[in-house]
Each structure stands twice: as C-alpha cells, then as structure tokens.
C-alpha cells in the first residue's frame, strides 16, 4: 500500500476512493447500476444476528446474479430494530430496513431490489447529517 505523504496526496486519494472503489470491485458494471447494501455490524447488530443476515444477502445476491456490493457498517443507532440493513438502489433514496433476518433479507432482494416493491419494517430516517 502506498503511503500518503502529503495533504495533496490525501486529497487525490479521497477523490479516487470516492469515485472508484465499487467500480474496482465490480469490474465493468457501470456504477449507476450497482445496488449498495450495508449491514450494520456493531455488537448489538451482531448479537441480533447481523452476521447471518449478511451471509444470506451475499448468497442471495450471488445466486440471483445481482450487481450489488455488500459491506458492513457500524451501528446506525436503531437498536430496537437490529439487525438493520441499508439498501441503496441506483436513482433512489437509501432505505433502511429493520429486523432483517435471513428470510427478510431474501424478501428485500426479491421484492425491493428486483421490483422496487417496498417491504415491511422500513426504518424512517429521522436525523440530519452534517453533510446535508
């Protein structure tokens, strides 16, 4: 790995990673077609079964040949609804689903990702982030 030797290096790095990581990982699929799924994997999420959820999602996505990147994230704060999963379908607002067990994971792929049909258990976002 290359060292970041100056502030300029850091800025270049930022730009590169902002636009590029997913593309690198997904080869030639254009970015606007990639579904991004993030599973909250903090202690509370894992305790509630987030690891199984993540595995189920990966399996499902591979099986159904969906262009998706599945990553782990930290706690989103919705402890009452763990495991939580955030899904970004290109062109749409990200949606957070709560209480996602393996069954629900498959349902999310089948209904929401494939057909745009929302499924029960959406967690309304109710905060501002500093980047807004």
């Amino acid at each position: 790995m290359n060292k970041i030797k100056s502030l300029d290096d850091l800025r270049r790095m930022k730009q590169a990673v902002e636009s590029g990581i997913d593309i690198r990982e997904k080869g030639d699929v254009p970015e606007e077609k990639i579904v991004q799924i993030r599973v909250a994997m903090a202690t509370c999420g894992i305790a509630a079964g987030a690891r199984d959820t993540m595995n189920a999602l990966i399996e499902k996505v591979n099986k159904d040949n969906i262009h998706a990147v599945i990553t782990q994230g930290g706690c989103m704060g919705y402890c009452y609804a763990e495991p939580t999963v955030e899904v970004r379908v290109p062109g749409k607002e990200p949606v957070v689903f709560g209480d996602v067990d393996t069954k629900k994971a498959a349902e999310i792929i089948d209904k929401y990702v494939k057909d745009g049909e929302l499924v029960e258990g959406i967690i309304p976002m109710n905060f501002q982030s500093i980047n807004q």
Partner: protein
Amino acid sequence: MGQYKMHLLVCGGTGCRASESARLVDVLGEELVKQGLEKDAQVVTTGCFGFCEKGPIVKIIPDNTFYVHVMPEDAAEIVAEHVLKGRRVARLLYQDPNSGETIEDSKHMGFYQKQLRIALRNCGFIDPECIDEYIARDGYAALGKVLTEYTPEQAIDILKKSGLRGRGGAGFPTGIKWEIAAKNAADQKYVICNADEGDPGAFMDRSISEGDPHSVLEAMAINGYCIGANKGFIYIRAEYPLAIQRLEIAIRQAREYGLLGTGILGSDFDFDVELRYGAGAFVCGEETALIHSMEGERGEPTVKPPFPAESGYLGKPSNVNNVETFANVPVIYLKGPEWFASIGNERSKGTKVFALAGKINNVGLIEVPMGITLREVIYEIGGGIKDGKKFKAVQTGGPSGGCLTEKHLDTPIDFDNLLASGSMMGSGGMIVMDEDDCMPAVAKYYLEFTVEESCGKCAPCRVGNKRLHETLEKICEGKGTEADLDYLRNLSSVIKDTSLCGLGQTSPNPVLSTLDNFWDEYVAHVTTRTCPSGRCKALLHYSIDTEKCTGCTACVRVCSTAAITGEKRQPHVIHQDKCIHCGACFDKCKFAAINVQ
C-alpha cells in the same frame, strides 16, 4: 424495476398502532383496490417515526409528503386526491406549531432537525474496517489541515472557540484542557483516549469505536500535535472485543498509509497509538484511576491537583478525553469553530449522543443538539413510552446521575441544566422509566452498582455507599422508618461533599434526586409500608377474594411456604405471617381471585 409509482408508508410503531394504524393500513389497501390503483401504489408499514404525538402517521414516497393524525376514514381521500390526482390533502399536513405554516415535505419538518449527527456522522455509513471509505468522507483531512495550516496554539484556539466540552461526564472545556497540557513542558507527553465506558446503559463510545474508529485516531493525532505528544493510548474495555478488533485494524491501516507514524503527511510530526485494556472497573473512567490502571496498578484515583495535564501517565503531562469528545474534533477543524458553536445553546455547544433505553419505543443511539428538551427526545425521537404506559422518570448520567420527572421534561438538556436539576450529563445514558418502576428500588439498583464498583480507597464511598444501599434495601423491604429518610439525606450530602473522586462525589445523586422528586413514594414505603408501583415484592399484600375463589386448591399446590389453607371447593385464606410475597398463587389462579395490593 420499480413497478410501483408510489409508496404509502404507515407508521407501525406501538404508539401509532394504539391509534388504529393497523386498521388504517387495511383501509388504505382496500381503497387502492377499490379505486383500481393497487398496481400503482403500495402500502407498507414501517418502524416508528418517533413522532407518536402526531400519530397515526402516513408518509408518501417519492414526494416525501407527511400526513399526521390520519384516521381510517381519511384513507379514501388520500387515495383519491394524492395517489390518483397527485394533490396533497392539506388538512392532514403537519403544521409547524410556531409559525402555523403547513409543511409538505417531511425533510423540512422540525423533528427531522431534532437529531443532528456529528459524532456519529460516519457510524453506519462507512465500513469501519476500510480506511478508504473514511478518507472518502473527508477522513484525515482535518489532521492534514491542522498540520499544514495551524500552529499548535492556533489549533487549540480553534477548539476553544468551538466551545467543545468533554463528553465523558463533567463537561470540562476541551480546548482549555489541551491548552494546560500544551503549556506543561516535558520531554514526553501522552494523549489518552478513555474508551472504558462503564455506565450501565451507555454504549456510544463503543458504537463510535466500532463504527468509526478512524475519527478517534485522527482526533488523537490532532491532540498530539497540539500538546506536543507523539504517543497515544486508547484505554478500552476488554469486554468490547469488536471495538478492540476494529481499532486494531484502523491503527494498522493508518500506519500503512503513513497517517500514523513518523513525518505524518510530510510534516515533522510523529504520532502513534497503542491500545491498553481495562479490566472491568467502573472507577477507571476517572482519569487518575485510568492512568494508574494503565501503569499496571490498582485503578484507584488520586487527589487532583496534580491533574493529568501536569503529571499523568508515568508522571508525564497527559491529556485524557473520551471517545465521543475525540469524535467531534475533526469536524470542528473542517467546518470551523463558528459552525460548531452555532449548534447547541449558550453554554453547551454542539451535540450530545444519548443511549436511549428503558421503557421507550425507539431504543437506540441518538445524537441531538444541546438544548433540546427531554420531551422532544422522549416523545419525538424515542417514540414515546412503551406499551402506552405513563411516563414516570428519566434517568440520565448513569450511576452518577439522577432521575428527572415530568416537571423537567421541558428543560433544555445541557451540562449545566442537568446539574442544576440534580442529575448530570454523564456519558449519556438515558433510561426511561414508566409507572411500573419503583423509585426507591431504582435508587437501590444504582447504589448496588456503586457499592460494587467503589474502589474502597476513601471511607465515605467505601462505607457510606454501602450504608446507603443497606438503608434503601431496608426501605424496599418495608422495614424503613422516617428517620431513615433523614439519614439518607444527610449521608448522601456528606458522601458527595467528602469523597475522593467523581464516583463518590456523584454516587448519591440517584438517591438525592429520587428523594427530591419522589418523596411521596419514599414516604409510602416507610409509613404505610406500601410500594405505589407494586415493584417491591416484600411490600405486596396478597389476599383471596372469597367471592371469586372456587376452592380449586391450585394456589395451595404452588405455595412454597404453605401459607394458603382452605377446604376443597370452599374459599381459601392466605396467612400473612407465612406469605413470602412470591406471587406464585397470583400467577396460578385462573379465576382472578387473588388480590394484590
């Protein structure tokens, strides 16, 4: 993709469900079918919006329309007007209580602005095990800026201007703390991050360490530059394996990128971070105790002064801040101190993360601007009290804090107001209690914790808290007297006044605040020997309603002390002298013939 043009999100939180949201879902669905729109729109129930006061709530996507107080009879109109014709139903829109204006787009509604994520800005949005994602969200840019644009004095000045105060408990101004450490000359100084979160019921530091570890490392490096330290330690609870793992990965990645190590970002500043493990001692949240623990000693606090800024780890000037405090730091440099100071209120700037738990619907981590009221937190973010019960108290500040009541609901939350109300900010635990919770028992619970966690060094904390706990135990067992209440009060104030460290100086707060706010409950325990909330087992009085009792003898069979007697098919009697108030008979009785008082 996207066969539905529109989604109708109906809040399915318990608050809204109580106000008929379930029927609303059905009716909306029926209306869609009736009007032939079932292919165009879909009804979905969601989790709680945290706005139960206005429930039931319907949100329409994609135009973000937000309807409040929606009744089943409104369904037809919503479908006919909004779904079919694309016209909003004005009378159901939310009205801003201040301006009276109706607000159409939920993004602009007040309650969205109730939460602002600064410390938690990246939690859940980046892969904590991937430094690139952190960098993509401006990670390490603040460190770069500080190293290239500011002298340490200027950088400290910015922090002072921001008004950031320590998020770990007492709320000491962070900039001033850094300044003191910077001014004490020494060949070696240390930056210490306190991640030994010990409050039962607070877990924001763990969440940040797990969700955004790099922000802590970046802030520590900035801190190192400011005070002239090139070594940092994160003192973390051994009970947090995932946080430890993520921090280890983060440290390794930062070293690989040269963001920790020598000559960071081309400057001549060196900085590195190591982990040190706590081993289960709440008192180690106190900075002198933490430092002794880091040195391999018993985590006993020592008298301040000298403060760690003068003589800390290995006798060298050290600056100790907690995880949340550090997580705020990079943003302050990127967005400017003025921006940060514009959030919050007069004396408390920025936001505070709270771990909202207890008898509340939306248990979780929230981050709110200082100055928000408890009411907003509980009812608009927390989604109100679970199972529609009555709010009784909210405990903030963990074992060091106090219980606040109805009358405090509209007090703006900040360091000073909480202190003035007999509680404190603490690390940000916020436990909501309902009518079923007995306040002397709650005080007893906290004292039990303190007794277990007292280090035993100073007499008032070692013996005093023990005596407080025993007295509370006595009260909850129905053996207390009014004199005990006076004893509790005097002892509490002396423990606060004379204890060596913050633990003892605050440990009586749960007692004092409940005495102040729930005096009647204490009095009931010691005079009529009753527990108004019915939680204190020993104070329950079980008796058999002779009208309802069928003499089935089921209760006799479960009674472990043979306190119930009676002829078969005749009303039975509970002998109070033998009854141990276990409640087994009550659970067993199929005829609701057993009364509890």
